[in-house]
């Protein structure tokens, strides 16, 4: 069963509803035991990194999630903070992450005031590696970003796309069965939602 992890600070309800409208059944899991049967996982996220990790820990999700993804190779799609949680660590709250991709999460830092933080708004993807996750999407489409921190990959081949805000940062990450988007596909119009559909249908 496709399982959406609810950390308590993630927009699970509307994702489940929209998937259902596309004929895709899913369940919401709030604890580790509820993800044992997951065949595919979505990890949405809005919030502070440290708070996100704290809630995953409180609900005994971390060990089971890492085992499912690392050993069982269950496909996972992580959104926004969810993608950042996949990394080794974050500067936000100076906190350790799930360590599923060889990357770290760092803060935007611009010396002048012309580039505002957080980065909020619609921005495009520069494609770095091919993937079926981009099937049937218009390469020119913009996606909705809202974040103060970004993911820095140590391995270039893990980067499917980058986006520019002051400098390039990773906007879509992929390592084996693990996918993450810094933007919100569920809030990037129907064209953006296609990326989530691709994950569910192709992996």
């Amino acid at each position, binding site marked *: 069963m496709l399982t959406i992890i609810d950390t308590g600070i993630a927009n699970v309800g509307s994702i489940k509803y929209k998937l259902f409208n596309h004929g895709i059944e899913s369940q919401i899991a709030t604890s580790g035991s509820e993800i044992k049967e997951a065949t595919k996982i979505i990890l949405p996220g809005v*919030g502070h990194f440290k708070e996100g990790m704290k809630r995953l820990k409180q609900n005994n999700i971390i060990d089971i999630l890492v085992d499912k993804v690392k050993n069982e190779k269950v496909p996972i799609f992580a959104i926004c903070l969810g993608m950042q949680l996949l990394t080794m660590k974050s500067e936000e709250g100076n906190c350790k992450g799930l360590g599923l991709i060889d990357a770290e999460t760092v803060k935007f830092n611009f010396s002048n005031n012309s580039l505002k933080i957080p980065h909020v708004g619609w921005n495009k993807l520069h494609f770095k590696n091919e993937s079926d996750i981009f099937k049937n999407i218009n390469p020119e489409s913009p996606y909705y970003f809202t974040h103060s921190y970004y993911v820095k990959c140590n391995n270039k081949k893990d980067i499917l796309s980058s986006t520019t805000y002051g400098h390039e940062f990773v906007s879509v990450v992929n390592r084996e069965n693990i996918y993450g988007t810094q933007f919100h596909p569920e809030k990037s119009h129907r064209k953006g939602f296609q990326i989530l559909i691709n994950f569910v249908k192709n992996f």
Partner: protein
Amino acid sequence: MSSFRIIPTLLLKKGGLVKGQSFANHKYVGDPINAVRIFNAKEVDELFFFDIESTLNGEHIDLDVVSKLANECYMPFAVGGGINSIDLISRLIELGVEKVVINSYAISEPDFIKEAAETFGSQAIVVCIDYKSDKNGLKKVFLNSSTKETDYDALKFAKLCSEMGAGELVLNSIEKDGMQNGFDIDFIKKVSDLVSVPVIGGCGAGNLSHFKSLKLSTNASAGTGGSFFVFHGPLNAVLISYPKKSEINNL
């Protein structure tokens, strides 16, 4: 680089959409779900929903209404109206809200902005500042849907909010609300030059050139409005509209 955003602000009262002038004389303009469907088709940048009665009545925005909006919105959206607890923000985000807009409570409890930003991240916390000039011409912050004047200087309060961790600031000139004669450019420029977070110009939009001067004359990242998106023609007939992508890109 992210593009300049144009954001319709939709006001909710008893589950219906309304629009007024200078925060008063609200007129029913339609059903919110229907409006969202139209805005989906028009691929609007973002939507704001404010419940204009909840704070006055000591309540908060209706969660059933938010849930229905979240299910329909294929664009990011923010909600405001009586937001005053971490638990309430958790519930709203869980329903599918990207960010919440804090207004009156940010003024009475500025520390709440910090607590909320540390729980949900700055990007989820928007502070909306409603302001009006006092008799000495100083811009003062107002609260409770503009019914109550505070001692806060609007510029200083904007700075305080960004230091407390607000991720975006909406600047609403009460005098400009519903007038459709342009944004309060001078003040929006002042704030957007001062703070490091994105600033959204509010109140006064009547045509696309108003958004153009907001974009070109200030450091604002977005502009929002109400009347411009829901009224049409000299008699203010209700018609939901949104500029074409090509028009926005040419601003």
